[in-house]
């Protein structure tokens, strides 16, 4: 690394600059600010981070307050009401909703990951007539706003007779999703073709080639797909609003939405906002967990998103 940068310097057309002014050669390609000059930025960033972290602390603290204290905005509750976290499981079929959400989310994320991977592999590996045209069609669906497909998709499910079940929440993922197909195809295209030729010599068929070579190499892309879809499904409110009508079918977002209405004093509810806050905290935990495990993949995925443009 050092030798490369030294060469670069020697060849750089800046002979009039005294070499001392460049300072110590950085081992990395990025020139760093001296630590002292970083301090103002760190202070500013710390100040701003309050904006992002404080609502969380407020939420956790509100979820630990008694009913009378929920609105007092104090950071430390006067009495810690840990029993809120017990009560929510009784106040609503919260456990059931949680299980519903988990199964739909995981199923949907797994399905979309593998369906997209298969499609992406086909687009990356096989050469067939109209390939680019078909890939263009797949990409074109990315441009469609979700609301455009929302109604026809509902009508299809309605005609099949499944429009008030949980199936429409995950089954469409069987067909993959344009953005993920695009993302994974980029990865598969980066795999040298010789790998596959070697595998064929070893007697692999197309599926084992996909499974034993393409999938392990493109694993980061698959993980990104899984994480993104997990987050999207876990948060989704609109689709459950359309399809789920039985109280026990609800997913967590729809249940929370419903609880907000039930407990609201203006609707004659008891105003148990501390329970809702506790439920919010619980509903955030799965996302925080997958974020904690997959943080670097998230950052990577977001960066890949940028290449799309």
């Amino acid at each position, binding site marked *: 690394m050092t030798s490369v940068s030294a060469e670069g310097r020697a060849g750089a057309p800046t002979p009039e600059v005294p070499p001392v002014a460049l300072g110590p050669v950085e081992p990395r390609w*990025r020139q760093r600010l001296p630590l002292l000059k*970083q301090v103002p930025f760190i202070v500013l*960033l710390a100040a701003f981070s309050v904006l992002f972290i404080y609502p969380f602390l*407020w939420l956790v603290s509100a979820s630990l307050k008694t009913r009378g204290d929920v609105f007092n*905005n104090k950071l430390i509750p006067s009495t810690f009401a840990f029993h809120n976290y017990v009560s929510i499981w009784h106040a609503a079929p919260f456990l059931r909703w949680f299980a519903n959400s988990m199964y739909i989310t995981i199923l949907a994320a797994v399905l979309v990951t593998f369906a997209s991977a298969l499609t992406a592999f086909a687009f990356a590996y096989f050469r067939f007539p109209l390939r680019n045209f078909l890939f263009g069609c797949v990409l074109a669906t990315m441009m469609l706003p979700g609301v455009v497909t929302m109604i026809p998709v509902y009508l299809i499910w309605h005609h099949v007779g499944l429009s008030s079940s949980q199936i429409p929440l995950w089954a469409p993922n069987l067909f993959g999703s344009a953005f993920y197909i695009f993302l994974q195809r980029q990865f598969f295209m980066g795999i040298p073709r010789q790998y596959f030729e070697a595998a064929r010599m070893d007697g692999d068929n197309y599926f084992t080639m996909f499974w034993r070579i393409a999938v392990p190499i493109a694993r980061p892309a698959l993980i990104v797909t899984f994480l993104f879809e997990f987050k999207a499904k876990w948060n989704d409110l609109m689709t459950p609003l359309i399809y789920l009508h039985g109280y026990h079918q609800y997913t967590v977002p729809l249940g*929370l939405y419903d609880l*907000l*209405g039930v407990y609201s004093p203006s609707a004659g509810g008891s105003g148990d906002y501390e329970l809702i806050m506790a439920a919010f905290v619980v509903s955030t935990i799965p*996302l925080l967990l997958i974020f904690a495990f997959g943080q670097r993949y998230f950052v990577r995925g977001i960066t890949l998103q940028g290449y799309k443009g």
Partner: protein
Amino acid sequence: MVWGAIISFTNYSVVAPSHGVGLANYRAIASDPYALLSLKNSFEMTAIYVPFEMGLALLFASMLAKITRFDGFFRTVYYLPVMTPTVAIGGMYLLMFNGPYGLVDQFLGIFHIPEPYWLTDPNWIKPGIAAMLVWQVGGNTVLYLAAIKNVPQQLYEAASIDGASAWRRFKDVTLPMISPTLFFTFVILTVYGLQVFDQIYTAFYNPSNAKISSDTSLMYVIYLFQQAFDYLHMGFASAMAWLLFGIIMVITVFQILFSKRFVYYEGEQR
């Protein structure tokens, strides 16, 4: 999808048999005050949201690019809101922006800034919603940060040698080099702003919140959703969806034309 285009020309309502009504649905939109109002609301909210989101993301990203200590910590903290369920954000928004009692106004009260009724004052609803969306600025921040870190270091060195100030280096090196990313997010955020549903629906359209769901918070997609699934006006709603699609397409084309002047792609022949 094509079916959606077809039923936008019918009076489909799931229960009754449908028949073609020609352009009547589109004409109905043009004469429906709520459809036009919600379209206007969505545009106004997006117009507030997108510049703030991009500006703050750029500010945070350029600061994050400067530091080498705690950068991982800050990145995580700034990204946390992105990992919060949208329904929880909508619910928290209800309480935190709850007139003078909410956290936000109490905070503003410290500085003796007049405390708006975020949920009911028509002048403050849209900025409030935009603020709620901007809270998730971390996603774009990480995106911009990656773009800034991809700018070749030699460009900065060359600029320094030419005596460029920090501001000039930012304006004439960083901005042009990350302009493709900026442009991409500009398009995506506009589309997102016009379509955002979950948070606003949670905060303003709970059945129990009927008294605070005012004309100002009625976004286009929410009205579309109500028409389709509360009133089962599927044909009308499909027409609304296609109208939105058309509008988004037109906006995107304009953005692309507009961007030709400002966006610099590496390796592009000029």
